């Protein structure tokens, strides 16, 4: 018994402490070192943060270089797929573009109205500036759905900066280095986004499901019936984590549970936009401007709004003129069509008339064969001369009347 315990202890000691000629550190040292690092990474000392930031920079760049061949293969595959479905996508894009163009103008009007209302209810506005960032590492993990972008604190990126794919929300920055940042995607299990779901304006929180979609959680039971299939979810701005009014995705209720299908495909992100926000106090700004009177500043703002409205109105006008022009052309084409149709009707009615006459003549000839003996004038019999209207009348009447 004692010897087996000794063997166990020897084996353990050997496993932990024995170093072969090639090993520089024993396993026990490395275990302690890793535990020490785990503890250190839990503290927010500046030196640890700096070291972590340097390691991150090196590893992200190396990871980007190591992933080049794989990315090249994937991109080539997608290029081939894209080329094969090029024409179809061109057609659908063309249609979509036409629709979007018409929507663009109404959107501009809404934006202008929105800005005006914001100025009325608040003394500051956000002047947002979107910068383009490249996704350098898109490493899906079992634990975190994150991407690494090539913009960091040197580009004014901060923790919490909103990240977009076109105008759709993708996630927010959770870790910032000097020249790179980590973005937590909306599909991550740890991501919580306060949203409004329209129609119905239902307030809810979307939590990532760790795959490619989100789940609606934290909603009052009686309001869940108000949510319809294909409703649009956009950020509500509650909690100031995300700006309000950013589209996120569509509600899918096909499997009797509410899932959010995000507008953006997180697996295909190559470039994203990071929104750097700067708060501008409009009133403070106006008070700083001592050279001009405060009234003139208000006038200027009003003038700006009016100019903006004028611009939008002129654009709307030009759009209406275009529509008008196209409608006129359509009317002309319709008129031409009507004239052609009238002509056609006339020729057809003539033809019908001719046909009726032919039919009458045919009837007369048929009756003539039968009743000519009754109507024809001869030496012994009264009648009518052949070819006269009376003769014709007699034939059609099928013989002479007694009065004749």
């Amino acid at each position, binding site marked *: 018994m004692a010897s087996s315990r000794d*063997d166990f202890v*020897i*084996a*353990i000691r*050997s*496993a*932990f402490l*024995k170093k*072969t*000629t*090639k*090993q*520089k*550190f024993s*396993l026990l040292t*490395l*275990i302690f*070192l*890793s*535990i*020490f*690092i*785990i503890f*250190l*990474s*839990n503290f927010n000392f500046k030196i640890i943060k700096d070291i*972590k930031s340097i*390691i*991150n920079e090196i*590893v*992200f760049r*190396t*990871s980007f270089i*190591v*992933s080049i061949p*794989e*990315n090249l293969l994937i991109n080539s595959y997608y290029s081939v797929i894209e080329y094969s479905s090029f024409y179809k996508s061109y057609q659908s894009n063309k249609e979509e573009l036409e629709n979007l163009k018409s929507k663009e103008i109404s959107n501009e009007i809404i934006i202008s109205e929105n800005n005006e209302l914001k100025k009325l209810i608040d003394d500051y506005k956000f002047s947002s500036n979107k910068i383009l960032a490249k996704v350098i*590492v*898109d*490493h*899906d*993990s*079992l*634990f*975190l759905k*994150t991407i690494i972008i090539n913009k960091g604190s040197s580009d004014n990126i901060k923790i919490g900066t909103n990240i977009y794919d076109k105008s759709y929300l993708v996630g927010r920055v959770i*870790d910032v280095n000097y020249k790179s940042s*980590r973005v937590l995607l909306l599909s991550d*299990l*740890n991501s919580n986004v306060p949203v409004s779901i329209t129609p119905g304006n239902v307030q809810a929180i979307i939590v990532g499901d*760790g*795959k*490619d979609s989100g789940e609606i959680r934290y909603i009052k039971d009686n309001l869940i019936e108000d949510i319809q299939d294909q409703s649009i979810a956009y950020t509500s701005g509650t909690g100031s984590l995300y700006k309000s009014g950013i589209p996120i995705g569509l509600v899918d209720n096909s499997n009797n549970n509410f899932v959010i299908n995000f507008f953006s495909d997180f*697996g295909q992100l190559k470039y994203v936009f990071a929104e750097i926000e700067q708060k501008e106090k409009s009133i403070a700004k106006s008070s700083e401007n001592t050279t001009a009177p405060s009234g003139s500043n208000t006038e200027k703002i009003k003038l700006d709004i009016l100019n903006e409205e004028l611009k939008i109105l002129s654009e709307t006008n030009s759009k209406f003129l275009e529509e008008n022009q196209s409608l006129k052309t359509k009317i002309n084409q319709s008129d031409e069509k009507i004239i052609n149709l009238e002509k056609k009707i006339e020729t057809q009615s003539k033809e019908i008339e001719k046909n009726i006459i032919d039919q009458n003549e045919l009837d007369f000839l048929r009756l003539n064969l039968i009743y000519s003996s009754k109507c024809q004038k001869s030496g012994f019999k009264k009648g009518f001369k052949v070819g006269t209207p009376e003769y014709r009348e007699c034939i059609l009447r099928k013989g002479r009347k007694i009065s004749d």
Partner: protein
Amino acid sequence: MIKLQKNSFFYKLYTWLPIIVLFVSVLNEFDLNYLNIDYFSFNFPFILIFYFALKEYNKFDYLLVFIAGLFNDTVVGLPLGISSFSYIVVCTFASYLRNITIRPHLIKDWFYFLFVISLINSINYIILFLFFSYDLDIMYYVINNLFTFLFYIPIATLLNYYLKAIND
């Protein structure tokens, strides 16, 4: 058959292949640990580390394994040191098995590997959930554990060929 000269560059590269593969697998965006396929993923580094630690391969430096773990944490976004700890614990258990085994057997190693990865994944889950408040899906761990266990035999068979080629 092509044979490499022992002092040639390609031979050296070939002997360092396990470590290179380990670093590429932790740095590459393509992660076998997360394939974006429902109910399928496996931890390739665990298999690689366990196998070479068990065979006491002289080019498989524990310090490099430790650094690979740090790289993995940085890329994946885990708290620094978690993967290093996991990798070193795998090495330790493999080293213990090597010391107590007189006649190695693949099936015994296989079941011992199942015990090791289950233990390490449990420790990982507990640390991340309790100390770092990560919201984790336990099913991922169960599936990952199962497939890592199942893939051990085919990968170990392939690696046997590799070691055989080195020794020849």
